[in-house]
């Protein structure tokens, strides 16, 4: 264990370093890539070393990935596609028969 770096939670964060409280407050911003480059790097470094924060990060990451998977499970029913194309045709829209994007609905 002696070759491992010190746990950053064991000592106050130095200049430019992130402590646990800061990391946990900014965890979702970090996961959403909404922090500036310096803060992203500070949080990333802390998570690499901290045995307390990493499991929480891992959990929240898995949680957000699970929500994102909902994207694959809900698509517009074919009826909705047909209704949209029919409504557009009524106001003059003329789909490209070659491209066939609009015709996917009726095909």
């Amino acid at each position, binding site marked *: 264990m002696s070759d491992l770096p010190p746990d950053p*939670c064991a000592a106050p964060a130095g200049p430019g370093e992130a402590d646990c409280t800061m990391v946990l407050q900014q965890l979702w911003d970090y996961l*959403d890539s909404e922090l500036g480059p310096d803060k992203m790097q500070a949080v990333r470094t802390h998570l690499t*070393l901290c*045995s*307390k924060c990493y499991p929480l990060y891992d959990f929240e990451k898995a949680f957000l990935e*699970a*929500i994102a998977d909902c994207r694959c*499970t809900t698509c517009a029913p074919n009826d909705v596609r047909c209704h949209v194309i029919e409504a557009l045709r009524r106001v003059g829209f003329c789909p490209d028969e070659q*491209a066939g994007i609009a015709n996917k609905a009726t095909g």
Partner: protein
Amino acid sequence: MALTPAEQREYDSSFEREALPWLDDVYRFALSLTRNEADADDIVQETYLRAYRSWHTFERGSDARRWLFTICRNAFLRTRERARHQVELEDGDVEAVASEVAENTGSSSGDERLLTRLDLGPALSDALAKLAEPFRSAVTLVDVEDQSYEAAAEILGVPIGTVRSRLFRGRRLLQQMLTEYARDAGIPTPITPVAAPAAAPQPHRYP
């Protein structure tokens, strides 16, 4: 000014190429707003009709999906009494949620196992459908549709801080609902982050 036949063909063709492929995404967002398939159907039609009529105003090369989401949101608002569906949050909420996260520090190895054990797909879809507005639209835009905070703020017509606040609160509410789901399924482990154990784990490097 009327378009020439060639211009009209290009107008329709570009609309078909750039706007129609996002129909699934617009439908998901509409469904998150209405929570009702028939209403979502109406909103999607209205969205595409408005988009088609305004297609000449769309800035080529910009984000068509974001543009459609904005139209969809506006179409929804026109069909609903806005006040009935909005829960206003104070600006301080985001700090309160951040504090809540900070308090819930510690190991969640049990939660990771729970995520593996639960079939989260149906549970999450169900929980997301039950999530109240305005949290649901924020979570749908950012977490499902992968919009930035800034894009979600523009689509929803609110400041970025409000999006964060709604998003973070919405995620916490979803986790609470999944905890209840787990309890109903007979799984005792809480799904939300738990308090730190008395004995901290030994420090080690994570991948």
